[in-house]
C-alpha cells in the first residue's frame, strides 16, 4: 500500500501541490487524473523520489520514504517499476538489453536465470520476437510494452505509469491499459497511473483521484466518475463535444 499524508510541493515560491492526502491500494490500478499542469506528474515524481516534497509523508507499506536515508531509498527503489511517458528506453541498447539492464545492475541472478527472466517478461508483454531490435526500430506501442517488461523485470511491489497512452492510437492504448491491469492483478502490485485519457479511466480505473490546481479535488472510481456533481471534474470528464453529446443523450 502507498499512502500520502498532507503532501506539499513548491517550486521557488509557487505552490504546486497543496495538502494532498490519499491511499493507493495493492492489487488495484489506482488512477490519478487531471488537466495538464494540475500537478499530477509532480505528484508522481515526488512518489518515485525524483522531486523532494517540502512537507508531508509518503508511506510505502508504513515506511516513510521522505525520511529515509539514501541507502534505504535505494532499496525501496528496487521495489518500484516506473513506466515513463515516452518509455525512456536506453537508445544504445537492444530490447533484450533494456529488459536485462535492471537484472544486471541490481540482481544476483546468474546469466541463465537473467535470460529466462528477460524471456518471461518479453513474452508477458507479447514481444518474444523483438529481442535484437533497437528502440528506434520499433513502434511507439511496442516501446511502451518493452518499458513495461523492463519495469516488471525485478518483480516490483509498486508500479508507476506516467501517461502510458500518450501518443498512442485508441486501439493500442487499450492493449497497454489491459496489460497494466492484468499485471497489477496477477502480481498484486500497487499500481499508480497518471492519465488524462478518459478511455483508460473507464477501462481500468478501480480507484480514481482527481487533482485540480494542485489539490486532491475528488476521489472515487470508474463507476461514479461519470455521475458526480463535482463541477471541475464534470468539466474535465465532459470536456469534448462528443462526451457532452453523450451526456445530453443520457
Amino acid at each position, binding site marked *: 500500500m502507498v499512502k500520502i499524508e498532507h503532501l506539499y510541493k513548491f517550486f521557488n515560491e509557487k505552490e504546486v501541490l497543496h495538502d494532498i492526502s490519499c491511499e493507493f491500494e495493492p492489487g488495484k490500478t489506482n488512477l490519478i487524473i487531471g488537466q495538464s499542469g494540475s500537478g499530477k506528474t509532480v505528484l508522481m515524481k515526488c512518489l*518515485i*523520489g*525524483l522531486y523532494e516534497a517540502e512537507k508531508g509523508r509518503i508511506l510505502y507499506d508504513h515506511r516513510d520514504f521522505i525520511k529515509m536515508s539514501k541507502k534505504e*531509498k*535505494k*532499496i525501496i*527503489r*528496487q521495489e*518500484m517499476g*516506473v513506466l*515513463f*511517458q*515516452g518509455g*525512456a*528506453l*536506453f*537508445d544504445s541498447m537492444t530490447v533484450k538489453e533494456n529488459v536485462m539492464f*535492471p537484472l*544486471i*545492475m*541490481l540482481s544476483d541472478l546468474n546469466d541463465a536465470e537473467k535470460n529466462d527472466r528477460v524471456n518471461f517478461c518479453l513474452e508477458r508483454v507479447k514481444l518474444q520476437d523483438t529481442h535484437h531490435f533497437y528502440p528506434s526500430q520499433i513502434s511507439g506501442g511496442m516501446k511502451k510494452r518493452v518499458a513495461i517488461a523492463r519495469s516488471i523485470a525485478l518483480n516490483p511491489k509498486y508500479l*508507476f505509469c506516467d501517461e502510458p497512452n500518450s501518443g498512442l492510437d485508441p486501439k493500442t492504448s487499450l492493449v497497454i491499459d489491459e496489460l497494466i491491469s492484468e499485471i497489477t492483478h496477477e502480481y498484486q502490485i500497487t499500481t499508480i497511473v497518471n492519465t488524462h485519457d478518459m478511455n483508460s479511466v473507464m477501462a481500468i480505473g478501480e480507484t480514481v483521484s482527481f487533482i485540480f490546481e494542485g489539490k486532491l479535488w475528488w476521489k472515487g472510481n470508474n463507476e461514479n466518475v461519470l455521475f458526480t456533481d463535482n463541477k471541475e471534474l464534470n468539466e474535465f470528464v465532459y470536456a469534448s463535444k462528443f462526451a457532452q453529446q453523450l451526456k445530453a443523450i443520457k
Partner: protein
Amino acid sequence: MNKISLLKFGQINVNNMRLNLLELILQDIGEYLLLMKRVFAIPENKRYFRKQIVDEINSLCIDSLLIVSVISIFMGAVITIQTNLQVENPLLPSWTIGFVVRQSVVLEFAPTIISVFLAGKIGSRIASEIGTMKVTEQVDALETMGINSASHLIFPKIIGCSLINPLLIVISIFLGLFGGWCACEFLGTIPSSQYIEGIRSWFVLRDIFYALIKTFFFAFLMSSISGFWGYKTTGGALEVGKTSTQAVVNSSFLILLFDLILTQIFLG
C-alpha cells in the same frame, strides 16, 4: 536624465552584469564540483563497469584514430615547410628544422591542438548523448532504478578518455614527425637525412612525459566538463544543441588555460 546620471546608470548596469557573470561562473563551478562528487562513486556492478569502459574507449577514442592520424601527418608536413621558410639563414644547419619540428609537435601541436580538436569531437558527442538521455527521461529511469546516473554515465567516459587519449597523442606525435619526413622526402623541403638527424638531436624524455601529463589533464577536463554540460541539460532538442556547444567552448577554453598553467609549472 543628465549626462552624469546617465554615466552612473551605465556603471551600475556594467557592475551588475559583472556580478551576475561572476555569480553564474561560481554557480557552474559549484555545480560541477558537486556533480564530480557523485561521479566518483563505487560502481554498482564492476563487471558491467569494465564493459562500459571498453565500449567508451572504442566509441570515443578509437573512432577518432583515423582523423587524428590524418591531421597529425598534415600538421607535421606543414610545420616542416613553414619552419624551413622562416629560417632561411645560411649559418643555421638544415637539421635544426627537424629539431624545431620535433619540439613543436611534441610540446604543443600534438598534445594541445589535437586535444582541442578532440574536445570538439568527443566533447560534443558526450554532451549531446547525455543531454538527449536527460531530456528523454532515460536519466530519470536510471535514478528510479536506484542507480547513480551521474556515475553510471560520466565515470566510464572520464576513465576511457584519460586512459586512451595519451595513447592517441603518442600516435599523433609519431605521425606528425612522419608527416615532416614526407614533406622532406617528397617535396624536397630539406634533405630527409638532415631532418632525421634534427629530430634525434638533444632528445629529452621529460618532454614526452610533459606531453602525456598534459594530455591526461586535458582528457579529464574535456570528458568531465562535457559530461557536466550534458547532465545539466533540461528542455528539448534546442537545449541539447546549446549545451553541447557550451561543452565544446568551455572544454576548449579550459584546455588552453591549463596548457598555460601546466607549461608554466613544468617548463617555466
